[in-house]
């Protein structure tokens, strides 16, 4: 509960943060601190320095830009949950952000920190995978963009390199007839996702014209459930059609990849994942306006 010693720097721009990271190879970026500080206090990591990016102007907030919703990496979970733009254009994201931890966590924790940490039990990775997000990453040599399929590489690893900073995340603005939702099986202690299901569906002329379903919580990095998506496209989204499609989720879960722990085994999570897929799809379908 007492962190080892470290130096502290506060960056006032992305460039300064990138430069500080170059100078201190062993340093860690500090955003909301809600994943990093516990790691330090448990003495699971001992970085020589923390580079606080928390007050960098322009890395915070949500704006709409050329068919995209652009979210600064420092935007807090509470801001995501309260955003009218997201509530209408990317409901699953505001919904998931509102289910994170508790108010204190939501007021401090940031979307950038959440996805950079890439805890398999986090909520936002699955949602961003479902919504087809793109991630803007800055380093001393410039900025690049990575899409969600490539961003989440595995258990707590992402495309963000040692000396890079995630600056923003963009998602396509929702189109007419589209609805999205997130359904979560929360761990009773941590509130993290034991199973998280994000779904986005588009309905045209009474049938599903596009579907995207992603799962988190029970896998090292978020996965798309292609079998579920395929089973939906071209169908009217009746309760039975959704239930049947949800049951295909197992096809997208490789047995040896599914995570288990003392609270919920891998076998159990695989067997019941369809319940949350069903809930997410049902809610998303109801939102197709």
């Amino acid at each position, binding site marked *: 509960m007492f962190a080892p010693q470290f130096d502290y720097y506060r960056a006032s721009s992305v460039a300064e943060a990138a430069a500080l990271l170059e100078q201190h190879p062993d340093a860690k970026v500090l955003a909301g601190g809600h994943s990093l500080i516990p790691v330090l206090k448990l003495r699971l990591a001992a970085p020589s320095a923390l580079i606080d990016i928390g007050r960098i102007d322009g890395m915070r907030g949500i704006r709409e830009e050329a068919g995209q919703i652009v979210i600064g990496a420092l935007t807090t979970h509470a801001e995501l949950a309260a955003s009218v733009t997201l509530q209408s254009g990317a409901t699953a994201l505001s919904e998931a952000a509102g289910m994170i931890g508790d108010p204190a966590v939501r007021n401090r924790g940031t979307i950038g920190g959440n996805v950079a940490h890439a805890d398999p039990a986090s909520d936002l990775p699955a949602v961003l995978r479902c919504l087809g997000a793109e991630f803007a990453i800055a380093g001393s040599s410039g900025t690049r963009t990575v899409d969600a399929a490539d961003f989440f590489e595995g258990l707590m690893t992402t495309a963000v390199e040692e000396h890079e900073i995630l600056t923003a995340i963009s998602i396509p603005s929702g189109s007419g007839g589209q609805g999205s939702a997130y359904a979560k*099986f929360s761990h009773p*202690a941590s509130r993290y996702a034991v199973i998280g299901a994000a779904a986005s569906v588009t309905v045209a002329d009474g049938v599903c014209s596009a579907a995207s379903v992603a799962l988190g919580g029970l896998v090292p990095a978020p996965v798309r459930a292609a079998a579920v998506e395929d089973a939906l496209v071209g169908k009217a989204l009746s309760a039975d059609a959704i239930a049947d499609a949800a049951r295909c989720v197992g096809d997208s879960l490789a047995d040896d990849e599914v995570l288990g722990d003392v609270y919920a085994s891998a076998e*159990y999570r695989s067997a019941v994942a369809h*319940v949350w897929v069903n809930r997410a799809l049902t809610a998303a379908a109801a939102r197709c306006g």
Partner: protein
Amino acid sequence: MSATTFGSGIRRREDPRLITGNASYTDDITLPGMLHAALLRSPYAHARINSIDTAQASEAPGVVAVYTGADTDGEIAPAPCAWLLPDSDLKIADYHCVAKDTVRYVGDIVAVVVAETRYEAYDALDLIDVDYEPLDAVVEPKKSAADGAPQLHGEIDGNQAFHWTVTGGGDIEEAFSEAEVVVKETIVQQRLIPNAMEPRATLASYTPATGELTVWNTTQNPHIVRFLCSLVIGVPEDRLRVIAPEVGGGFGSKIAVYPADFITIFCSKKLGVPVKWVESRSENYQATTHGRDHVQEIELAATADGKITGLRATVWAGMGAYLSTAAPGIPTILHGLMLSGVYDIPAIHEDVYGLYTNTTPVEAYRGAGRPEATFMVERLVDLLAAKLGLDPAEVRRRNFIPKFDNGHDVVTGLTYDSGNYDGALSKLLGESNYEQLRAEQAEARKHGRYIGLGLSTYVEICGLGPSQVAGAIGFQGGLWESAIVRFHPSGKVHVMIGTSPHGQGEETTFAQIIAGELGVSPDDVKVIHGDTDNTPMGWGTYGSRTTAVGGAALALAARKIRDKAKVIAAHLLEAAVEDMDYDDGKFFVKGSPDSSKTIQDIALMANVAWNMPEGVEAGLEATTFYDPPNFVFPYGAHLAVVEVDADSGNVELKRYVAVDDCGPQINPVIVEGQVHGGIVQGIGQALWEEGVYDDDGQLLTGTMLDYALPRADRLPDIEVHSTVTPSPHHPLGVKGIGEAGTIASTAAVYNAVIDALAPLGVEAVNMPLTPERVWRSIQAAQGRN
């Protein structure tokens, strides 16, 4: 009694300071020159220590001293076990405060670092090099009893700490051989980890020049701490002052005096400066005592019409690696003697085996033995109902002890004080609209929804207890309580008590008792507790005894004041004492209430003593030492309504209705608070909480991310009702209410879940009833069908 004070739900006077950050806990106290201690704890559940190298740590920045078992040997006696259970072949293993050559649980203390700051102390811990030789570990009580199990204490055969039995009533063999119906079950009362908001802490300040020691400690019982510290550390009791400042909850985990406390004192004595130790939350999980941990094999004999004829049980109780201060009495005296519950059971027999395991020591935890007993009985009654196809309410009614108001003997040897169990159940069924709920359940089942109703009708033993009984059951102390009531010249009152409330609200309710007895405003009464230098000796706050015993002492002290005040008033009014009357703080000659002396008038006169009756001492003060003639036995009836999602196994608690009877309520709002908190802790055992060790003795649920405490958003509003049956032997008629909710609620929720799952063929699920466990039980039952 003044209607506006005793019995009214006035606000807790403790709360403003607690909720505005103005309370001062042990960790808030800083003394000049104070150093900080950090403890190196074993990462192995069972290992021999080959060597310890502290050289590097001793040289680290800020480090003042590093001590190991070699330094403390002979200076700190082993941590004592103070409940010497008789007739049980009790074998107490030495609990060395710093391990000498063997560690026996993850958290056993191996070394202590004292440094100028806490950070430096923790940094230095990383520099101590211990060479461990790991040994096989055993973590489950029944496995610990098995042949070939790893042995914890060489001198103690088969890891058995004790074997205790209770036998009462008729021939138990005959009850079962002649039974028309027998139901059985094996129950795992999983290990629970108390989570007081404030972790444990000790600040010790030894003054070499005077040989005086002051200890600030997160304790429920400062006078016991003083007594035990003087024995273990060798500072005489007259030089030893123990202060329990604000204490942020305990639930039993702050009864024990721990190795860490003795070590902190040792460090201060050795170094001649104040030393503070505060545990981290991780240490709290590892090393502060745990609760429950039973494996119970239970069976019930009955007639075909549902009349119970016998109850038999064998319990394997995990005690942890060593016996904590009060541990042996919990799964025995406070458990086995309660097996008759609210029922008339003609024959009872129980064997309890206490077993050492490579785990954190187990102690009292809210309810302490009684939740485990209630659960057994309430499960068996439900199993009987299911077997006979009767409603669980009906089976209970067929077996209730009939209403009694002055003593009822049960075959385990206890005499319950008063009770009307059918009255509580009837009220519960009415308030909850039980019949309609059953109809709704039947309707829901038709639509594939699994709703369940669970009853728990309980009685519990608290207000511990007569000291003569304490002696007979091996408790190494008294169980009386004390109170001093002191009137100051202006009529304001100080109350000094030997118990040590730490969140329960007695600063408020004890002022209300004084208000009720003496007609002063509760605002004029200050209740002082927790400091052995300015409170009378007392045994502390646990076992729902503070009001049940300490409150009785207070009421009797107030009555002594009233008697003396009446003599003074008679003198001032020039009347005979026999002609005096008293009402709500006023003394007057019978029939002349207009010319009266108030208690404040009398307090002034007694303190200035200008005109006192002959032979009456100055001052208005009284002390009482109250030893109760019996325990008190609160009781009640609870109902839980749940819905189970069969697809995922998730249990939703939809409704919780409680009827509790703790006699007259001094402050119904505080009673309701205790009932709420208690119920929620019991629900936690049913649905969420479990301290899990792996086979190597590593604690897998050692943080709040893993150990699931109850949270408000998973709970329905708790509907609280009461009946009022005074205790015949308590001066105010009151019974304890601190633990009742916990004692009742686990069984209510569990019974509800099993009831919900009945159509699916599920008969039992281990607690906590996690979605996976429930889901697996459904899969298994469906597979069988």
